């Protein structure tokens, strides 16, 4: 009897668990099938969430059948790309720099599938295309804000994993900070995880102990730890910046602004071209100039920013749009 009950209980658990992963079969009768591979939980209110929102927009606007899986390791990347490729998915988004190599390896095997690499760098053949994200541009503006407002002259960056794309964001922030605060210091830490919110909090607290009063992150789900470290500091007021998505609402009294990329819009745009049969392999860029990247000030904290500082930020923004501004430490 006990055996039967436990077997049933476990069967139920496994069913529940399995159903948390999206249905992988394309639905018959729909022309466009789109899949998303995310490196972390889509419930992170940041990077992964923005990819999922793009996917949902594609489902809604283009009546596409969609599917999403969470993948961690290169072995899983390949397996998931293959699974969706075998099932004839038309577009597969690899949501992150780390998916690029695998997509390039598999592209000849699945010539009818278009691989889109968010944060990818190059076009390969006619079916691997990148969404090139110039997150360093709005991050630079965050840096200018922080540099002008910091009392201590120290700012910190907390990253998940150490990828070039994460470094570009931090380097942009550093360049912005140092442009208005040449003697300032920008600290950097990586926690080797996208979910370890405790580690992110400790890394941020260590930076605060070193004097940082402005923090920027690129740590996906773990970023809550950075925001929390800023909010819970009693000795001085510490502000944080959101990245990738407008995160101002996550902690409205702590997050001064967000460096935002309109990833959902770019994903939808690409999928629309594919659906209309007008897809041409090319890199899609998200920049301040095209309005697909932006700095969004948290309205609840706007009073913290004096008009003179805001003017400086707008000048920098203009210079970036006009292509007149160099990022000395961003090595693309």
């Amino acid at each position, binding site marked *: 009897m*006990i*055996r039967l009950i*436990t077997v049933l*209980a*476990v069967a139920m*658990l*496994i069913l*529940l*668990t*399995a*159903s*948390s*992963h999206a249905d992988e079969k394309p639905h018959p009768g729909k022309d466009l099938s789109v899949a998303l591979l995310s490196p*972390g*939980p*889509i*419930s*992170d*209110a940041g990077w992964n*969430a923005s990819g*999922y*929102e793009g996917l949902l927009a594609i489902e809604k606007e283009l009546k596409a059948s969609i599917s999403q899986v969470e993948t961690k390791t290169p072995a899983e990347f390949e397996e998931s790309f293959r699974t969706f490729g075998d099932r004839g998915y038309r577009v597969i988004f690899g949501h992150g720099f780390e998916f690029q190599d695998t997509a390039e390896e598999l592209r000849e095997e699945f010539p009818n599938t278009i691989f889109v690499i968010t944060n990818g760098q190059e076009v390969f053949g006619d079916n691997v295309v990148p969404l090139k994200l110039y997150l360093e541009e709005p991050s630079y503006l965050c840096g200018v804000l922080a540099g002008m407002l910091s009392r201590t002259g120290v700012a*910190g960056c907390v990253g998940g994993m*150490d990828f070039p794309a994460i470094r570009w964001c931090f380097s942009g922030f550093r360049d912005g900070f140092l442009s208005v605060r040449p003697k300032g*210091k920008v*600290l*950097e*830490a*990586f926690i*080797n*995880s996208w*979910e*370890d*919110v*405790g*580690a992110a*909090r*400790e*890394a941020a*607290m*260590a*930076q605060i*102990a*070193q004097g*940082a009063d402005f923090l920027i992150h690129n740590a996906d*789900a*773990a970023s*809550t*730890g950075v925001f*929390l470290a800023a909010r819970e500091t*009693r000795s001085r007021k510490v502000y944080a910046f959101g990245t990738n998505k407008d*995160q101002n609402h*996550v*902690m409205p009294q702590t997050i001064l602004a967000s460096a935002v990329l309109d990833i959902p819009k770019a994903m939808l745009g690409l999928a629309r071209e594919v659906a209309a049969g007008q897809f041409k392999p090319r890199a899609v860029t998200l920049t301040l100039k095209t309005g697909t990247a932006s700095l969004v000030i948290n309205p609840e904290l706007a009073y913290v920013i004096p008009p003179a500082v805001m003017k400086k930020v707008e000048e920098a923004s203009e210079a970036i749009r006009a292509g007149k501004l160099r990022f000395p430490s961003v090595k693309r």
Partner: protein
Amino acid sequence: MIGIEVAAATIRLTVPLLLAALGEMWVQRAGLINVSIEGAMLIGAFAGVAVSHLTESALLGLVAALVASTFFCLLFGLFTIRLRVNPILVGTALNLIALGLTGFLYRSLFGATGRTMIVPPLRSLAPESLRELPVAGPLLFDHTPLVPLAFVLVPVMAYILYETRTGLMVRAAGENPEALEAAGLSVNSVRFQAVLVEGVLAGAAGAYLSLAHAHTFIEGMTAGRGFLALAIVFSARCIPLRVLAISLLFGSTLAVQFQLQASGTSVPHQLIHMLPYVLTLVVLACFGRPSGRETWKLGS
């Protein structure tokens, strides 16, 4: 100032490891090995945040964490003790279930793309004046009650283990189950009780991570701490004081690691990140030698 910061961080990083390791120690003493402690912590972390969010009470959240994790560990007990399935197999399966289940429930409760649920956290019970003290504040008073509890549990569990009848039964279940049976006692029931103890402690560890430290739940937020707890128990060879010592060792290297990165050192962070794991190997090499007597036996 930095020294105090590192010491306070050491305490914060040690406590979840210590609580989980003490639970695992108890189970291993009783002759089982539970690798699903990671999953149990995750279940506890989730239940704590979910209930704290729904009831606006961190205390109820804590209770929920303990209960949920205990139920989860009972499942482990059911399979390994009653159904005699290989404990490593059960533990691995349960870890996967915990990760999927908490993710599924989190998304169904709080929406797929997350609203980053900041819940009423567990806070220190000490009055503001004590918490604000320059040195003693961050070291002694600015912690949730789970912190002193974790440290007090070490001598308490050592006493129970070595000095009481209950402890004798637990040790007998691990070292000489035949003797326990011969004395007319049930090995299975002793082991079940040990699993319950682990469930409560793993739940407390999970609740500390989510309710006290992160104030939110993130899928996979335990990030391998359960496995670190396993490593601690192995290196400590199930001896309570050593469990404390090695937990502190891990906690302090983690704390130093963050402080090193923040100090703007030129040492690559990849090397700094290796610190706790290199340390595991060193500790295992020094203390992990098999003695004449193994403290636990598998599936006996």
